[in-house]
């Protein structure tokens, strides 16, 4: 009989290897799933993982990698801090949308003023908007003890409806011939976030790089990082160490909301270009996987965001070339998360063979 025995200290080496094993297992089982549904598994896996990097049109897809990884990285970095402390902000998608709306609203309010200050103000508005949206579940949790998972999630659906209302109403392009959606922010030089479009680089990429370093230092060396880690691992010990949980809830929710919100503004003033009914492509949810795939560590998340970006682009190619539905990539991403979570057990526990009847 096989039993699990808790390790005294988590196996550090294994925690680096397990994400790789999870990716391999996902390819194998994902391929089996495609085969079961009558699609060529080799072609599907090749299209998703190989084509964007080394295929015929990789010159086009490679910059896309950075474009997709940027918002995932920004959002996941913030979420990971909360997850480490046991604060579950699941509504990053909503904070991302509201940040985009606030940033775009500020930028459009100054249209057609030609000054780079507009961009700075819009970025700040995106940060504030996302953070405030995240403060709703944080406030309700602290004041009334409501569950932040459910509230932040419900607010995603509220934000999606708000987005539709904005795209059709107040933020609609007055010169848009009645089509829904705002003015194109990339054509408004003062609000444009692109740095080098042919490389896929916009200011969000710069912000994400800064965030990786800041959070790396914060989590490793700052007392706040220590408090976050100790709260997640042992809430009781955290209380003895003088951690005030309220402060952590506010900090983690506000920080993750701020990062998601600013990611939203960079997206609408760059790759997406405008506020439209469906500019958000589920980055807020995928970022949760990115956070776990990266083991809630800033450097891990950096790598994970590119891998997940790869599945996004691969998924789009598979949609066009193999006729897979757009949502199929979610099955793939869900599976990846299954394997990561399942394999996690081996970093905290070891397998032990026990013979029955022998005490």
């Amino acid at each position, binding site marked *: 009989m096989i039993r699990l025995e808790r390790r005294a200290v988590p196996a550090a080496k294994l925690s680096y290897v397990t994400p790789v094993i999870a990716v391999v297992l996902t390819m194998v089982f994902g391929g089996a799933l495609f085969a079961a549904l009558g699609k060529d598994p080799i072609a599907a896996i090749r299209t998703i993982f190989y084509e964007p990097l080394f295929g015929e049109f990789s010159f086009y897809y490679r910059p896309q990698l950075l474009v997709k990884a940027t918002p995932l990285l920004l959002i996941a970095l913030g979420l990971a801090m909360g997850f480490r402390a046991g604060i579950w902000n699941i509504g990053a998608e909503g904070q991302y949308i509201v940040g985009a709306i606030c940033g775009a609203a500020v930028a459009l309010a100054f249209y057609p003023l030609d000054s780079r200050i507009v961009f700075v103000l819009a970025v700040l508005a995106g940060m504030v908007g996302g953070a405030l949206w995240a403060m709703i579940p944080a406030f309700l949790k602290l004041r009334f003890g409501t*569950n932040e998972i459910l*509230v932040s999630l*419900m607010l995603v659906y509220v934000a999606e409806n708000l987005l539709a209302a904005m795209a059709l109403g107040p933020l609609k392009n007055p010169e848009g011939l009645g089509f829904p959606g705002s003015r194109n922010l990339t054509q408004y030089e003062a609000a444009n976030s692109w740095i080098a479009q042919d490389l896929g680089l916009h200011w969000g990429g710069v912000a994400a790089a800064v965030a990786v370093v800041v959070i790396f230092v914060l989590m490793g060396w700052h007392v706040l990082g220590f408090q976050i880690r100790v709260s997640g691992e042992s809430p009781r010990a955290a209380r003895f160490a003088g951690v005030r949980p309220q402060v952590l809830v506010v900090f983690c929710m506000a920080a993750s909301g701020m990062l998601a919100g600013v990611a939203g503004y960079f997206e609408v003033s760059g790759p997406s270009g405008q506020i439209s009914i469906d500019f958000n492509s589920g980055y807020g949810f995928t970022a949760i996987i990115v956070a776990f795939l990266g083991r809630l560590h800033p450097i891990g998340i950096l790598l994970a965001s590119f891998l997940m970006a790869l599945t996004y682009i691969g998924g789009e190619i598979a949609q066009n070339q193999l006729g897979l539905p757009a*949502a199929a990539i979610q099955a793939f991403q869900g599976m990846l998360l299954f394997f990561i*979570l399942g394999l996690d*057990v081996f970093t905290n*526990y070891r397998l032990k063979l026990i013979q029955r009847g022998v005490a």
Partner: protein
Amino acid sequence: MMVFGIDPIVLIASLMAASTPILLAAIGELVVEKTGVLNLGVEGMMITGAVCGFIVTMETGSPGAGFVAAAVGSALLSLIFAVLTQVFLANQVATGLALTLFGLGLSALMGQSYVGLKSPSFPAVNFGPLADIPVVGPILFNHDPMVYVALFTVVGVWAVLRYSRLGLILRAVGENHDAAHALGYKVVRIRILAIMFGGACAGMGGAYLSLVRVHQWVEGMTAGAGWIALAIVVFASWRAGRVLLGAYLFGGVTLLQLNLQAAGSNFPVQYLSMSPYLITILVLVLMSAGRRRNALHAPGSLGRVFHASS
């Protein structure tokens, strides 16, 4: 008699039908949470049930077979969650989210060739003369079988949890898994079975959407119903009777919102569509305000990993 241009009898009857998907999903999740497991994958199990039920109904022509398939399909899907959280001791919150993502993707893949087809109708149960009783007849005796299945499930869960030995064991496992283990109950096995029951219920709820409410398969058609079911369990403070109340309340809000839209209210549609979610938050606040976790009747071991050291 008409109130605001809406016949109240018709409204109550349609409310019972509209609430059935979230009622089924919520009562299943209630049992899961009673055993101390928080499965956030309800949305994924519902949508998988919706597609399984639709496919089997289209292939066999029988909605009854469709509902059975939905229950089986979603129970199998929930087994992934059960194994990961109970055997591999994975984090329940993250695994539940993964289940939702996986379910949404898998259902889209499975249902790809069924988009745009129309499912056969699911006739109401024939109660003979009972259906002709004024007021009571149209409200109680003019529904399809699943409405009654859902109601019987609620009554059954209530009775089992309250009066039976099985209910006592389920509650013991959820309140204190270490104590239950020390008493010799198979905590892991009981939880896995409860999770599968929850999966089957959510699957039937999802199939009710595709087979009765919409008569079509649409990608992502559950649109947050699974999350509302989770909220209802909290709203009900883990009591079966209040789950029924909660489900009807949310069904009512959704219906009212649709009626207002149809009546041509010149208020932008999007703000009305927000209302069920906002009201969910409001209710959560009202239920949680000024109470401690114990007073809410949350199972003591809810969401905690169980690892038997001996």
